[in-house]
């Protein structure tokens, strides 16, 4: 026997600090402070009560978290302070959970004869269960009568279970019908485990049942048995899940994690096929093409073995904006063609060549295409539309191509015709040198077509359409100066009229006009062009800034500039300004009089490149006269047939707004707000929209316009989408700048 003398505690600890530790549930520290220090102002009895409560709470919390060893250590410490039956009962429960049934049975013996009815009942319940778990199924029946019906039947059910009498066990569980919902659910969980049925997960379930049904180990008691069983259960569940996943995939119900395929299927060929189908399902069922493309890129070295994979890759690439994956295309198709070119029809190869040539602009692409005899595709895409002189080899190529019919070749020729047609529409803004170059190309084209040998009959409509477009286009040029081209066009038309045996009555209006021009010796278009053209069409053309070869505003790295006069040349004309001023005045007068302002604009003649200044000036005046309403900005744009989010306006609009901001930043931001808000949600993940947001937030910052909701939205949306899409043009300094704005906003909001 050891005798320990209580150490005299010399140091003091503040009562309030102790209370604060208690309130913050720092029970272990409270106990340690009580043991080490003198707490002034608190009686020993009060301290004992606090210590008891701390131990009790600690034990309960450790038990709930599955740490049964700590729980029992805490309850034993507690019992050293107070040996009441209430605490002994807790120890009895913990002994059972520790699977220390022998000790539990011994320990329970005092409690089952307790005078406290509640203690007695619970002790008997645990005592009987401990006996059953210990292997003694001979229940002392006189104790059973002290239990509630629910508990009695549960004990009998467990005894039946231990005796392998499953039906009996289920029968007793059915009879054990506790009132409390939580207990009812737990009984149902046991029934589900015994009868292998599925069950909905619920927070009310005790940890063991959740574990056995869902392999959820949360708060499961950490005992030797649970540690051993955990591995078994987790592996059982993962096998079962993989089985279920694969079955779903085979039944084409849903896509599954690729890991399941790799873990479950060892045959490489099957594995690849399953990955392929899985990607397909991801596209079809989940409509997640981005993820599908990511998976394709990741497993491309396996997928390339499947002949169908090229089709899948092209479909994915065409529907997902992801330039990063462009890098894998050449390598993929190189291997793909090596493996499968013998299986493919020539048109299938052509289809791949066209796709590849348009996306991967590298010499190696041409080499690959040539390796598989696709020179004709390179010719149609990169030589035919840009011929600057007549060459016999080109003639031979096109002769060979057009001798046989191919729908894809026809499409490529048709897209070239579209190019001529769109150049026709943009003609006024072309530089003179570009006009000359195009005329030369059209002449060469006519020469080539006139010498075309026996083109397939299926090209008839396309060729005649080409001649109509060319006939119309050359009318852009003065007849006298370009008589030779007019005549060459008519000769070419005549050649095909003869070749295809076409009735001249069936010729297009454009071809008729060509012949009429030759007869009258003048162009039918030049004279009437300016008066016939819709001024807003002209405006669109000017805004687009087309100069023949470059799509100026589609450049990703395009900078909006800072609004300085040098950013872009302006073409103001005093008369036009006067005219526009009068229109603005009429417009505002109408607004002030609550009349339809658009009625005054019926006869509007406006200089196209001034449209944004015109709109912004109108806004400024309407604000000035306090008649501004959001709605008429939309009406105005609709009337002008302008959708600012369209590619032809979206870059240039920002330029004009920033420029206008120098004159009136508030009005500029008002218009900017309108166009930002009017963009449909699906377009708000585009690069150009993020550029708008960047420009808008810069505008607000530069002119101290004050942070509003749109500004906040702009910053958050920019960061969110940029982090998701990772546009190169917005990475680095631009991302950093927006992130600084974000930090400022966060600081403000805090």
């Amino acid at each position, binding site marked *: 026997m050891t005798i320990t003398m209580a150490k005299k505690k010399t140091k003091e600890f503040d009562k309030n600090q102790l209370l604060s530790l208690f309130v913050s549930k720092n029970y272990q520290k409270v106990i340690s402070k009580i043991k080490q220090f003198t707490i002034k102002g608190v009686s020993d009895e009060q301290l004992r009560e606090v210590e008891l409560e701390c131990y009790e709470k600690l034990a309960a919390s450790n038990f709930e978290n599955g740490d049964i060893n700590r729980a029992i250590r805490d309850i034993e410490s507690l019992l050293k302070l107070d040996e009441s039956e209430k605490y002994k009962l807790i120890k009895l429960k913990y002994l059972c959970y520790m699977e220390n049934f022998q000790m539990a049975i011994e320990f329970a013996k005092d409690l089952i004869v307790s005078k406290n009815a509640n203690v007695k009942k619970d002790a008997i319940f645990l005592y009987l*269960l401990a006996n059953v*778990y210990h292997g003694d199924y001979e229940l002392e029946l006189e104790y059973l009568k002290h239990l509630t019906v629910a508990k009695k039947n549960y004990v009998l059910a467990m005894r039946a279970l231990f005796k392998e009498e499953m039906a009996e066990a289920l029968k007793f569980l059915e009879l054990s019908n506790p009132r409390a919902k939580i207990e009812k659910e737990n009984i149902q969980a046991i029934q589900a485990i015994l009868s292998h049925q599925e069950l909905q997960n619920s927070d009310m379930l*005790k940890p063991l049942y959740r574990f056995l049904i869902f392999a959820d180990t949360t708060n499961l008691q950490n005992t030797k048995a649970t540690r051993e069983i955990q591995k078994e259960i987790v592996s059982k569940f993962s096998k079962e899940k993989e089985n279920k996943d694969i079955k779903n995939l085979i039944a084409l119900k849903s896509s599954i994690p690729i890991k399941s395929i790799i873990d479950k299927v060892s045959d490489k060929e*099957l594995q690849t096929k*399953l990955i392929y189908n899985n990607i*397909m399902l991801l*596209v*079809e069922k989940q409509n997640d093409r981005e993820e599908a493309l990511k998976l394709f890129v990741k497993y491309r070295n396996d997928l390339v073995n499947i002949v*169908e994979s090229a089709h899948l890759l092209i479909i994915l690439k065409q529907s997902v904006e992801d330039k990063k994956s462009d890098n894998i295309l050449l390598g993929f198709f190189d291997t793909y063609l090596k493996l499968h070119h013998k299986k493919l029809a020539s048109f299938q190869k052509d289809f791949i060549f066209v796709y590849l040539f348009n996306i991967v602009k590298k010499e190696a692409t041409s080499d690959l295409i040539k390796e598989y005899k696709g020179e004709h595709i390179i010719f149609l895409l990169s030589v035919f539309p840009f011929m600057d002189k007549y060459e016999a080899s080109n003639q031979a190529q096109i002769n060979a191509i057009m001798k046989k019919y191919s729908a894809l070749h026809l499409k490529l020729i048709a897209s070239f015709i579209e190019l001529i047609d769109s150049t026709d529409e943009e003609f006024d803004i072309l530089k003179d040198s570009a006009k000359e170059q195009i005329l030369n190309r059209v002449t060469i084209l006519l020469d080539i077509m006139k010498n075309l040998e026996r083109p397939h009959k299926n090209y008839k409509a396309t060729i005649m359409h080409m001649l109509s477009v060319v006939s119309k286009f050359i009318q852009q040029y003065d007849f006298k100066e370009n008589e030779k081209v007019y005549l060459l066009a008519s000769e070419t038309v005549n050649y095909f009229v003869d070749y295809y045996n076409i009735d001249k009555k069936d010729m297009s209006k454009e071809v008729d006009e060509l012949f009429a021009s030759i007869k009258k010796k003048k162009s039918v278009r030049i004279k009437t062009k300016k008066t016939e053209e819709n001024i807003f069409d002209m405006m669109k053309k000017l805004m687009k800034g087309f100069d023949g070869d470059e799509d100026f505003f589609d450049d990703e790295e395009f900078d909006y500039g800072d609004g300085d006069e040098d950013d872009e040349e302006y073409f103001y004309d005093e008369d036009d300004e006067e005219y526009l001023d009068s229109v603005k005045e009429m417009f505002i007068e109408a607004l002030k009089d609550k009349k339809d302002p658009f009625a005054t604009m019926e006869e509007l003649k406006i200089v196209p490149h001034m449209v944004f200044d015109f709109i912004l000036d109108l806004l400024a005046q309407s604000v000035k006269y306090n008649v501004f309403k959001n709605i008429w900005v939309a009406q105005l744009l609709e009337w002008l047939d302008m959708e600012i989010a369209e590619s032809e306006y979206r870059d240039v609009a920002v330029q004009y707004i920033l420029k206008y901001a120098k004159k009136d930043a508030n009005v500029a931001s008002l218009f900017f707000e309108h166009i930002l808000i009017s963009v449909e949600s699906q377009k708000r993940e585009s690069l150009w929209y993020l550029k708008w947001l960047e420009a808008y937030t810069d505008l607000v910052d530069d002119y101290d316009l004050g942070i509003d909701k749109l500004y906040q939205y702009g910053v958050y949306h920019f960061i969110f989408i940029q982090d998701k899409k990772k546009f190169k043009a917005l990475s680095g300094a631009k991302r950093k700048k927006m992130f600084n704005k974000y930090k400022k906003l966060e600081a403000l909001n805090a």
Partner: protein
Amino acid sequence: MLKRSSYDILGLSGDFEFGDIKKAYRNAIKKYPPEQNPQEFKLISDAYDVLTNEDYFLRHIEKDLSLLDINIEVKADETVDNSKYLKDIFEVPFII
């Protein structure tokens, strides 16, 4: 729309050449004569067309996704019997 792969429908796999497609088509038709298997015949002729007819191919290339036939047997789910663990780990369904 998801369809079965044309190659699978025609029974083509492994190392074959473009010329084999026609043979495979004929074999498939023999196996499934159109008058007795109108639906299967439609599948077979569509599959043949998409692989050999350019117009048909271009009309379908951008909208049709094809799935591969997969022959794999997944073991039937073993009945997961976790009841024995109820005897190994102590728990009670009641609040005590």
